[in-house]
């Protein structure tokens, strides 16, 4: 591509050459010819170098942590990324800007992702930087963006070297809960009616030694200790009644909104993973049920063991980075985002050679209003520059999507005319590349855009099914976004009542959107000092707080505690509740 600098140079030199010839000035003609010959030779060399280097570049990426080279990392862990670009081309490239496509989940902590310099077979280009992941999920490195230029800045070319590398980011390890002293005052069996043990209490681990009480079985006497102390001592063994905990995690669109790695869903995944790890430490059983608006995505029966925990964490990691998809999204909103992504990752597919756009098309054949879905924003003037830009971007993005998803020869034309199909494919394109775009929670009339009336019913069915298969007293943790769904909570409340009637315990964790003050936090600024944006944010926060209070009230009525996942101590609250249940199960305190 000729830059404006190159264009002006060529134009002025050619103009003066023509002038020199017409006016008969040989020295000037000589100067201008020299400059033009140099310009053309630079262009020729630039193109030659590019063509010779194409396909001969290789990329090597290594992630290092304190423990050495890593294939998976923990969230919150500092990771050094080293990228090496090498070329075995015949000619060196005089100037290359290499920009690593930073994984959306990663946050840059040190170094830079952009390095420039010459590239030859002897001198590779290296990029080194440090990242940190705020949440669990997948680190997706697409490759590197390469921008070539000559040393004068007359010619440039951009390409992307695709080298997809994915690394699993595991949720953070929960610090081990402080040891609880299970000091039994006396061996009291669990109350009849409260506990229905399906198996006898196994005694294998030594819990304590105490003085012999008449009636203790003789086999429990610790003879060696008794001999040492000269009185009878009885061994006490731990009761091995496991607690079963099933986590119901909401992965619907409402919890996916926000920056990648900092969504409410990531917080839920952290909580669920923390509970699973804490349970594993206590040798308890943990189950997992993932659901969204459409139904149950995945269900894992309660189990224990390292393999089971890894399985749970793997499933949680897979859903942690889900990108929201809204049926109400419009082409108007999505086209600039999708085009920006295509510019970054598929620059070759946007070049005029392979993806041309006739400039007159928006003027000649604008999209008729009868093919635009009702309610979607539209342009009323076909000569509007904004409409022209959107049409061009949509055409180029549609061509890319059509090829990427194999829509066939008619795919491009279909995507250009069908708004709904175009929106669906653009959302898929963005989701696959983990690109989040800002969604608003409320529409212009103040309606919650992620209201899902069917979600509580689905969760209720899943809960009843779990209760049906439940054995001992279990703990069901419902991580559900029930905000603004208060009118549709009745089926879920009934299911919870059934669970409680069967002596199970239920608790609700309410995911909280990022960037909104959690309940109980007082706003810092006086409303008089705020601008419109802050006032709107304050109103939105107030609306969320009201909805949260209603959900809390609804569940309090049936004796179910509700926690806010925005608070930092949600995991400890759940663990505390489980401990209480465990003590109750084991009959100790």
């Amino acid at each position, binding site marked *: 591509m000729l830059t404006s600098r190159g264009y002006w140079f060529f134009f002025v030199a050619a103009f003066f050459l023509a002038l020199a010839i017409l006016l008969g000035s040989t020295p000037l*003609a000589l100067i201008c010819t020299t400059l033009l*010959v140099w310009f053309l030779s630079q262009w020729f060399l630039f193109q030659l170098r590019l063509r010779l280097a194409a396909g001969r570049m290789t990329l090597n990426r290594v992630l290092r942590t304190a423990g050495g080279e890593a294939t998976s990392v923990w969230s919150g862990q500092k990771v050094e990324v*080293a990228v090496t670009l090498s070329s075995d081309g015949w000619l060196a490239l005089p100037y290359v800007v290499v920009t690593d496509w930073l994984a959306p989940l990663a946050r840059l902590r040190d*170094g830079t992702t952009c390095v420039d310099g010459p590239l030859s077979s002897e001198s590779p280009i290296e990029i080194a930087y440090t990242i940190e992941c705020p949440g669990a999920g997948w680190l997706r490195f697409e490759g590197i963006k390469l921008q070539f230029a000559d040393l004068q800045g007359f010619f440039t070319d951009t390409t992307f070297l695709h080298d997809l590398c994915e690394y699993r980011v595991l949720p953070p390890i929960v610090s081990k809960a402080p040891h609880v002293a299970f000091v039994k005052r006396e061996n009291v069996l669990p109350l009849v009616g409260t506990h229905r043990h399906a198996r006898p209490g196994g005694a294998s681990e030594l819990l304590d030694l105490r003085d012999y009480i008449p009636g203790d079985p003789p086999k429990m006497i610790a003879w060696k200790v008794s001999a040492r102390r000269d009185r009878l001592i009885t061994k006490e063994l731990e009761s091995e009644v496991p607690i079963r905990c099933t986590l119901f995690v909401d992965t619907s669109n409402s919890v996916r909104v926000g920056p990648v790695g900092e969504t409410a869903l990531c917080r839920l995944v952290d909580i669920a993973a923390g509970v699973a790890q804490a349970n594993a430490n206590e040798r308890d059983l943990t189950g997992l049920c993932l659901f969204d608006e459409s139904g149950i995505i995945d269900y894992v029966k309660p189990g224990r063991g390292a393999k089971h925990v890894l399985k749970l964490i793997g499933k949680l990691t897979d859903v942690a980075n889900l990108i929201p998809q809204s049926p109400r999204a419009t082409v108007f909103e999505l086209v600039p985002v999708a085009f920006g992504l295509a510019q970054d990752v598929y620059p*070759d597919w946007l070049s005029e050679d392979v993806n041309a756009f006739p400039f007159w098309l928006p003027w000649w054949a604008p999209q008729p209003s009868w093919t635009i879905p009702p309610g979607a924003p539209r342009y009323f003037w076909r000569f509007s520059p904004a409409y022209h830009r959107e049409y061009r971007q949509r055409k180029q993005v549609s*061509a890319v999507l059509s090829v990427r998803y194999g829509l066939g020869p008619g795919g*491009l*034309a*279909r995507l250009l005319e*069908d708004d709904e199909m175009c929106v669906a494919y653009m959302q898929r394109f963005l989701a696959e590349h983990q690109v989040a775009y800002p969604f608003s929670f409320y529409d212009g009339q103040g309606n919650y855009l992620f209201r899902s009336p069917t979600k509580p019913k689905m969760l209720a069915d899943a809960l009843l099914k779990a209760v049906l298969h439940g054995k001992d007293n279990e703990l069901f943790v419902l991580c559900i976004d029930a905000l603004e769904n208060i009118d549709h909570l009745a089926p879920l409340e009934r299911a919870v009542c059934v669970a409680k009637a069967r002596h199970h315990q239920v608790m609700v964790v309410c995911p909280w959107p990022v960037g909104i003050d959690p309940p109980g936090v007082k706003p810092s600024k006086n409303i008089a000092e705020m601008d419109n944006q802050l006032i709107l944010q304050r109103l939105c926060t107030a609306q969320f707080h009201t909805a949260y209070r209603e959900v809390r009230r609804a569940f309090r009525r049936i004796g179910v505690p509700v926690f806010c996942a925005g608070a930092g101590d949600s995991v400890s609250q759940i663990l505390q509740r489980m401990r209480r249940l465990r003590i109750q199960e084991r009959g100790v305190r």
Partner: protein
Amino acid sequence: MTKPADDQAPIMTERHYQAMSTLALSVVILIQIQQQATFLAGVALFVNVLIALVGAMAIFYRSSLSPLVVLIAIAAPQIAETFDFHNLQFRGDRRSMQLLDVGEVVWCAAVLVYFIGQYRLQTLWFGILPDDARVTTPPGEDPGPPKVRSARSLRPTELAALVFAVPAVVFFAQIAVMVLKHPWTFVDLEDARWKQLFVVAWTLLVVMFLAAHVFSHWRRLQMDRGSALLTLQDTLWDETGGEQRDINRWIVWKKLTNQQLTKP
């Protein structure tokens, strides 16, 4: 972390280009003064002082003045001198041209070196790649690549290559001008100047057209599968776009109408 050029002081800095440009500019001015000794001494002096000022501003004060201003300043006295030589008329230059005249060769080489140095300095100060509107540099922060070229990327080989490139280009340009001044007969134009212009324009167009097509073809040979599919798809869309548009618009209309009808 690997920081290739941070550990050692860079061998080459922008000062090398500044020195090179200054030297070249000085040579240009000296040769111009020598060449224009007989022509309107006051005007020549004024022009050369102007060139020196513009050049110095661009080299030492990071002025964003285009080096093309210097070309204009060089061209103006040449045109005036031609005008004066031909008794205040513009005619074809009947003066003979000597191949590889030392003065002209050095002058051309100096102008070329000045342009090379000045443009390379501009890449270090004002940018080498076109601006990306989506990327903004916070005020007060030093813009690095891809905004401007980093000093770390400078290599001594850049200067070493000029030792061969500049004489080659100057020599080729001399040959080209000699060929241009040859009385061509294949163009049936009365005025020799228009004939020369025609030859230059035609040569430039043919050379650029052929080279561009060769590179374009080469690029297509190196295409990946996705780009090839895009090319085919684009060709089909270009040829049948109107028909596809009509069909799809009716399909969408039907779909939307059905949605409206089934809406409760």
